[in-house]
């Protein structure tokens, strides 16, 4: 860490880090490249624990996060230990009906579906009503047998979880860590119909089938979602003050996953026609969202060529950052570090590659360092490699 940053108080450091992100995404040469830490459950192993020890114990998870922040100078951390609702679901008695699973080495999620295609419009009409009256009783055969005492225990765990979120935000404040973007679990994330379809409502399998057999129903659902969910967000953005919200590193955080199974026509009619107006709203108001383009976005880069520099930042997973820079010289890039490198190379090789990324992609702005994948498994990264990269990027002045 640079001496000038070591001397900063946490509030000052947080503001400075936001400026580093904002400069980079606006194509203003920052003092140094910022590091967006895409590190999730890997830090549990690095702290000497197993997954099952950490995800059900908030004290252990807090220790994991604090150890991580003490060891690795990072500018934003995608997961501060709060993606962790197992105590709530286990108090309810999820059992084998839950979609998530974990053991000592892994947290995973099974492909699942809780809304048939012919009920999607009913779902969007009133999401909570559908969940309470239809989806939950179908997910849990014993839903109507749950006692009030069980619900009281669920509530207790829920409150503990909420308090843990506040606590971890306070921990991050002490380390001068800013928030990535304003949408969070409490305020809700910005999501699109097709993304909710692939992750929860239909799942990958049922969506793939529905794309062939029920395109019209999907289109009707996406239209209804746009009216109810996305248009109000667009209106809010258009009414907001001009310019970036300097409390955050980005003005929004979006995840794109479904483009990996959509053909061009499906992408245009089920996704782009709703996504474009939102992105244009951000551009109009001088704001910049971060889009985590899971899988690849390469097939659809032509859709993003007309956006002004400074109005978009792509967090890349499997796309080559140099190829995306060539195809989209107007879009800031977040990423570059691969698990292949971090898990297998030497510290010197990792630093050399990091320097190459910075010198070739970031010397005039437009680049933020990050890991391509959410570091989740034990072998995703060697501790000495991440340490070396963090030390280098936090001290390498442009």
């Amino acid at each position: 860490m640079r001496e000038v940053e070591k001397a900063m108080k946490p509030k000052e450091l947080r503001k400075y880090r936001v400026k580093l992100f904002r400069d980079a995404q606006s194509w203003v040469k920052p003092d140094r490249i910022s590091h967006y830490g895409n590190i999730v459950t890997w830090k549990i192993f690095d702290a000497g624990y197993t997954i099952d020890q950490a995800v059900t114990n908030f004290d252990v998870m807090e220790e994991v996060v604090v150890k991580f922040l003490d060891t690795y100078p990072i500018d934003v951390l995608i997961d501060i230990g709060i993606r962790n609702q197992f105590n709530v679901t286990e108090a309810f008695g999820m059992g084998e009906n839950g979609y998530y699973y974990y053991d000592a080495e892994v947290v995973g999620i099974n492909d699942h579906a809780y809304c048939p295609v012919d009920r999607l419009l009913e779902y969007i009409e009133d999401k909570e009503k559908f969940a309470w009256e239809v989806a939950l009783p179908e997910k849990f055969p014993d839903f109507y047998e749950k006692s009030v005492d069980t619900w009281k225990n669920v509530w207790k765990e829920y409150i503990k979880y909420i308090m843990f979120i506040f606590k971890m935000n306070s921990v991050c404040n002490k380390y001068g860590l800013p928030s990535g973007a304003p949408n969070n679990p409490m305020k809700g994330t910005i999501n699109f119909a097709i993304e909710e379809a692939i992750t929860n409502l239909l799942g990958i399998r049922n969506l793939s089938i529905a794309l062939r057999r029920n395109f019209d129903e999907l289109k009707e659902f996406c239209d209804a979602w746009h009216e109810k969910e996305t248009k109000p967000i667009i209106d809010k953005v258009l009414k907001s003050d001009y310019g970036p919200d300097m409390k955050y590193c980005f003005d929004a955080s979006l995840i794109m996953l479904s483009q990996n199974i959509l053909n061009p026509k499906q992408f245009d009619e089920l996704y782009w026609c709703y996504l474009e107006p939102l992105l244009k709203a951000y551009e109009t108001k001088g704001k910049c969202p971060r889009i985590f383009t899971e899988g690849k976005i390469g097939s659809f880069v032509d859709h993003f060529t007309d956006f002004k520099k400074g109005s978009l930042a792509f967090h890349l997973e499997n796309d080559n950052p140099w190829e995306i820079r060539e195809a989209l010289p107007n879009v800031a890039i977040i990423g570059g570090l691969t698990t292949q490198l971090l898990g297998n190379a030497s510290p010197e090789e990792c630093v050399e590659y990091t320097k190459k990324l910075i010198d070739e992609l970031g010397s005039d702005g437009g680049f933020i360092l990050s890991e391509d994948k959410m570091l989740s498994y034990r072998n995703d990264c060697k501790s000495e490699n991440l340490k070396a990269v963090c030390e280098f990027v936090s001290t390498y002045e442009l």
Partner: protein
Amino acid sequence: MDKNTWPYASYPEGFNKLLNKIMPLWARPMKKIMGPLLIKILIDG
């Protein structure tokens, strides 16, 4: 029990009735935010 006999089966009436049973008084003003989030945790989890 089933949806016809469970006293909390309907939304929002039954759900709010259940929340009133399990939420402490101090938390009830936050029902509108915390209730839907709890449902989301259970349905997505």
